[in-house]
C-alpha cells in the first residue's frame, strides 16, 4: 500500500491551486499539488482579456473603487451571489494585482497623455493623467460601470500562470504531474485526502493530508460545444459529489460566452468588445443597441448571449456549412491595436479560421464557457458538511458569481481565492494533528482498485466515448441558453438512462498504465452524475435568473427562488441527485435585489426587499456624506471575515493612503 503524507493536498495545478499552495507553504505547512498536466498548461492560461480589480488608474476608471466593483458583481450575479464573499473578493482583488506585479507579471501599463480609443463605434480621444504614467492599465469589459479590467495584452491568464507557476517552483512547492484523483478518503464527517492514480504507470496511491483542497476548475466538457480546455471535465466537482456528504451549489448556473469562433468553439476575448468591437448580423447591421440600448455589446454575458441567439432565431444569423453564426467586427480597432492588444485573437483567427481580423469579420456564436456552480463552501473555503475539505476557484461555490459571472472576475477569483482560502487552510492546519485512519485508507484504495478491475476485466459492452458524446449532445441541445420544462425533462430522462448504461462500460484495451480509454471510462461515469445535477437543478428551478433562462418561466422570481440549489448524492445507487435549497437573506444584503441595469426589467420582488431598502435609505440619510468605508461597515460589516493580513483599504491615485490604509 503506497501512502504519501502531507499537510495540504491540493488537487489541481491552475492558478487557484498553486496560489493556495504558496499561501499554505509560506505559513509553514507542506503542500503537494496534484495535476493532470504540467501546471503551466492548466486552463487558467486561457484567460485572455484580463482581471478585474478596482485600481482606478486609467482616466475611464477614475472614481472606481470596491463599492462600484461590488455592485457590478452583485448585479451581474442577478443577486444570487453571497454579498459577504463579493465584498471579501473586491477588497482583495487590487492586492492580488499588486502582488502579481511584484512577482513579475508584465501588466500592460499606462502612458500619459492623449490616446485614441473606440467607444460605442466612434473614435474618441482620451487623456491619461501624468500621475498615472507607468501604473497598471485597465480596459473596459461587459457589465461594469468603470474600466476595471487589468490586462497583459490578451494573454493575461498566460502571464499570470507563468508568474505564479514560477513562484511556486521558487517556493519549492512539490507538484505531482500526470496524476488523477479518483476519490476522496473520508468517514462521512472528515476528509483525509484522496486516492490517486498515476496516469503513466496506472499505480494507485493514497495521499493523506490534514486539509484537502479542490482546485480543479470547471466542467465545460459536459457540453459538446465549449470554450474550455479538454481537461475541464468537472471531475473535482464529481469527487466531492460522490462523497455523499459535501454538496454542490447552483450547478444549473452555466455561462455561455458570446464570442466563441465557429466551428472550433475557441474563445476570442470579451476584450474585443471592451476595446470597441461590435456584433453584426447577416445584413452587417449592429443589432445589440436594438435590444440593449444602455449597455449594448457590453451588457453581461448571459444577456448578450441570449440576445445573439434571439437574433439568430429571428432569421438574422449568417448561414454557413457549420450552422448559423453572427459576426464580431474588430476591424475598426485598427492593425496596430489588434497586433499589440489582441494578438492572441489575431493568432487564433489566422490559424483556426484563415481570417485576418484586421480586414475581416470573425464568425462567432455563444458556447459554454464557465461553471458558476461548484463545491459549496463557507467564506473560508471549507465545506460546511465535510470537515477538512476546501475548494477554491471555478471548482468552488463560496458563491461570488451567483447565476452569472462578470468577464474578468474569474481569473481574478482564482488568485484572490487562493490568497484567502490559502490563509484559512493554514489556520486549519495550525490547529490539527494529522490523524491517519489506516483502515479507512486501505478500504478506499481497495474500493478504487476494484472499480478499475471491473472496468478492465468485466463483462460490460457499453462504449465510454459513445456515452460521453451522447451526454454532451443532450446537454448542448437541451440544457443550453434557452431552457424549457419539456426539454429539461427529456435531458434528465436521457441522462438517467446513460447513467444506467455507464454502469456497464467495457474497456477493450487492457493496458494497466497509459490507457486513454480506461480514463474516459471512469471519468464518464462521474460526468454523467454531474450532468444530472445541472439538468435536474435547471428543471426544478422554475424561474429565470442570470444565465439560467426558462422560456416557460421567463421572470426572475425573488419571492420563491432567491435560494441556492444544493445537490448531493448520498446513496451511490440513486439515479438522481438530492436537491435542497438554502435561502439568501435579503435583510443582511448591502444591495437588495432590483433591476440589473441591462436585460429584463420585470421580476417578482421578495417581501423583504422593500423592508431592507427602507433600512438602507435610513442608514444612508443618517451617515450623510461620511467616509464610504464607514457607511459600508454600517450596511454590511464583512472585514472580520478576511484573514488578518489581507485586510485594509486599497490606496489609489484619488484615495491616497491615510489612516484607513493602515493595517490592523
Amino acid at each position, binding site marked *: 500500500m503506497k501512502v504519501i503524507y502531507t499537510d495540504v493536498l491540493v488537487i489541481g495545478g491552475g492558478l487557484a491551486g498553486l496560489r493556495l499552495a504558496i499561501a499554505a507553504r509560506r505559513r509553514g505547512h507542506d503542500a503537494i499539488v496534484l495535476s493532470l498536466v504540467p501546471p503551466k498548461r492548466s486552463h487558467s492560461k*486561457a484567460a485572455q482579456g484580463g482581471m478585474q480589480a478596482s485600481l482606478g488608474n486609467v482616466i475611464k476608471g477614475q472614481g472606481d473603487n470596491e463599492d462600484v466593483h461590488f455592485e457590478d458583481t452583485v448585479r451581474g450575479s442577478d443577486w444570487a451571489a453571497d454579498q459577504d464573499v463579493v465584498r471579501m473578493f473586491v477588497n482583495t482583488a487590487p492586492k492580488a494585482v499588486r502582488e502579481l506585479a511584484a512577482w*513579475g507579471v508584465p501588466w500592460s*501599463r499606462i502612458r500619459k497623455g492623449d490616446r485614441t480609443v473606440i467607444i460605442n463605434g466612434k473614435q474618441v480621444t482620451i487623456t491619461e493623467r501624468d500621475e498615472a504614467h*507607468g501604473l497598471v492599465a485597465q480596459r473596459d469589459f461587459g457589465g461594469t460601470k468603470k474600466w476595471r479590467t487589468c490586462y497583459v495584452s490578451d494573454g493575461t491568464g498566460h502571464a499570470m500562470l507563468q508568474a505564479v507557476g514560477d513562484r511556486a517552483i521558487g517556493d519549492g512547492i512539490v507538484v505531482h504531474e500526470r496524476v488523477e484523483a479518483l476519490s476522496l478518503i473520508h468517514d462521512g464527517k472528515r476528509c483525509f485526502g484522496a486516492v490517486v492514480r498515476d496516469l*503513466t504507470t496506472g499505480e494507485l496511491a493514497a495521499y493523506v493530508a490534514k486539509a484537502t483542497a479542490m482546485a480543479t476548475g470547471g466542467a465545460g466538457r459536459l457540453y459538446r460545444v465549449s470554450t474550455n480546455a479538454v481537461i475541464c471535465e468537472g471531475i473535482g466537482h464529481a469527487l466531492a459529489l460522490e462523497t455523499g456528504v459535501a454538496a454542490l451549489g447552483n450547478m444549473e448556473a452555466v455561462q455561455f460566452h458570446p464570442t466563441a469562433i465557429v466551428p472550433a468553439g475557441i474563445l476570442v476575448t470579451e476584450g474585443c468588445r471592451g476595446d470597441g468591437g461590435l456584433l453584426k448580423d447577416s445584413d452587417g447591421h449592429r443589432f445589440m443597441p436594438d435590444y440593449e440600448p444602455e449597455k449594448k455589446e457590453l451588457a453581461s454575458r448571459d444577456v448578450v448571449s441570449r440576445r445573439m441567439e434571439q437574433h439568430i432565431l429571428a432569421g438574422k444569423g449568417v448561414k454557413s456549412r457549420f450552422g448559423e453564426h453572427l459576426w464580431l467586427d474588430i476591424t475598426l480597432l485598427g492593425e496596430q491595436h489588434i497586433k499589440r492588444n489582441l494578438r492572441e485573437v489575431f493568432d487564433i483567427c489566422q490559424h*483556426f479560421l484563415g481570417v485576418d481580423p484586421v480586414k475581416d469579420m470573425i464568425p462567432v456564436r455563444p458556447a459554454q464557457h464557465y461553471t458558476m456552480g461548484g463545491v459549496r463552501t463557507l467564506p473560508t473555503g471549507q465545506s460546511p458538511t465535510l470537515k477538512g475539505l476546501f475548494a477554491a476557484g471555478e471548482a468552488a461555490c463560496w458563491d461570488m458569481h451567483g447565476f452569472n459571472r462578470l468577464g474578468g472576475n474569474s481569473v481574478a477569483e482564482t488568485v484572490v481565492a487562493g490568497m484567502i482560502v490559502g490563509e484559512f487552510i493554514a489556520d486549519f492546519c495550525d490547529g490539527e494533528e494529522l490523524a491517519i485512519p489506516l483502515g479507512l485508507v486501505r478500504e478506499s484504495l481497495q474500493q478504487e482498485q476494484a472499480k478499475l478491475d471491473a472496468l478492465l476485466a468485466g463483462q460490460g459492452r457499453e462504449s465510454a466515448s459513445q456515452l460521453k458524446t451522447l451526454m454532451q449532445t443532450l446537454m448542448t441541445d437541451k440544457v443550453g441558453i434557452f431552457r424549457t420544462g419539456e426539454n429539461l425533462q427529456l435531458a434528465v430522462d436521457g441522462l438517467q438512462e446513460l447513467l444506467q448504461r455507464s454502469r456497464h462500460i467495457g474497456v477493450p484495451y487492457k493496458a494497466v498504465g497509459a490507457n486513454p480509454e480506461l480514463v474516459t471510462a471512469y471519468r464518464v461515469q462521474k460526468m454523467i452524475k454531474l450532468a444530472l445535477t445541472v439538468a435536474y437543478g435547471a428543471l426544478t428551478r422554475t424561474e429565470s435568473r442570470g444565465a439560467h433562462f426558462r422560456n416557460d418561466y421567463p421572470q426572475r422570481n425573488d419571492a420563491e427562488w432567491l435560494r441556492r440549489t444544493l445537490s448531493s448524492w448520498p446513496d451511490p445507487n440513486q439515479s438522481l441527485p438530492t436537491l435542497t435549497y438554502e435561502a439568501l437573506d435579503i435583510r443582511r444584503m448591502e444591495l437588495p435585489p432590483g433591476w440589473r441595469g441591462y436585460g429584463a426589467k420585470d421580476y417578482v420582488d421578495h417581501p423583504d426587499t422593500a423592508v431592507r431598502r427602507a433600512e438602507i435609505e435610513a442608514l444612508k440619510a443618517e451617515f450623510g456624506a461620511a467616509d464610504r468605508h464607514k457607511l459600508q461597515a454600517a450596511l454590511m460589516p464583512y472585514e472580520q471575515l478576511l484573514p488578518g493580513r489581507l485586510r485594509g*483599504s486599497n490606496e*489609489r491615485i484619488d484615495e491616497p493612503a491615510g489612516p484607513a490604509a493602515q493595517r490592523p
Partner: protein
Amino acid sequence: MSTVKTGDKIRLHILRFNPGNPDEEPRMQTFELEEADGMTLFIALNEIRETRDPSLSFDFVCRAGICGSCGMMINGRPGLACRTLTRNVGPDITLAPLPVFELIADLSVNTGKWMRAMSERLETWVQAKEEELDLTRIEARMEPDLAEQIYELDRCIECGCCVSACGTARMRKDFVGAVGLNKIARFRLDPRDTRTDEDFYELVGDDDGVFGCMTLLACHDVCPKDLPLQTQIAFIRRKMIKQGLS
C-alpha cells in the same frame, strides 16, 4: 502547398511505442481518414482514438495554441498539432513524438519534467529583495514599453519545440535550450529582478548554457510563438562574454 480538399483521403503515419509495455516494439501505424473542413491534427487524432484505436496516446489541453501541450514532430518538423490544419501538411502526414524528452507513450512526451528541472536550475522567477510587500499601497511604476518588451519574451509556452529542434540538446543532456536562454533574457530585462550579469553568468556562462549554442538556430525557425530567439541568444552571449572577460 498541398492540394488536399474536403472529402479527400488523408493518411496519418504514426510512430507507436509504449515503453511501459515490455512486449512492445516501436512501429509505424497508418490510419486513413477523410479530410473535413477546418480539420486540424487535434480533430484527426481524436477521431482516430474515438473510432479506430482507443489506445493511441497524445496530449492536448487547450486545443487553441496557447498551452504548449501538443508539440510533436509533424512531417519531421516540431510544431503544435492543435493548430496544424491537415490540409496544409497532407495528404500523407508523418507524426512522431518530440525527441530529447522522455517518452510516455506514442506521441506523448514528458515536457513538464524537463521544464521544471530547467526552471529550478536557472531559477526562473523574479528574485526580489526579500521584504514583505505592503499590498495596500500603489504598485511600483514601470515604463509601458518595457512592460511590452518583457511580455514579448514572457509569451513562451514551454512547448519544447525549440529543444527538439536543437542540435546541442541532442548532444548535451543538460543544455538549457533556447527556452532557458530566453528566460534568462526575460529576467535580465526585468527591473524587479535584482540579479546581475555576474549572477546570470553563474547560471548560463558555460557549455550547458549560452556557450553550448552552435548557432544553428532551428529553435528560432520552429518557435510557434515567433519569439525572437536568434536575437536574444546572440544578445545574452555577448553579455556573458563581456562578463566572462571582466
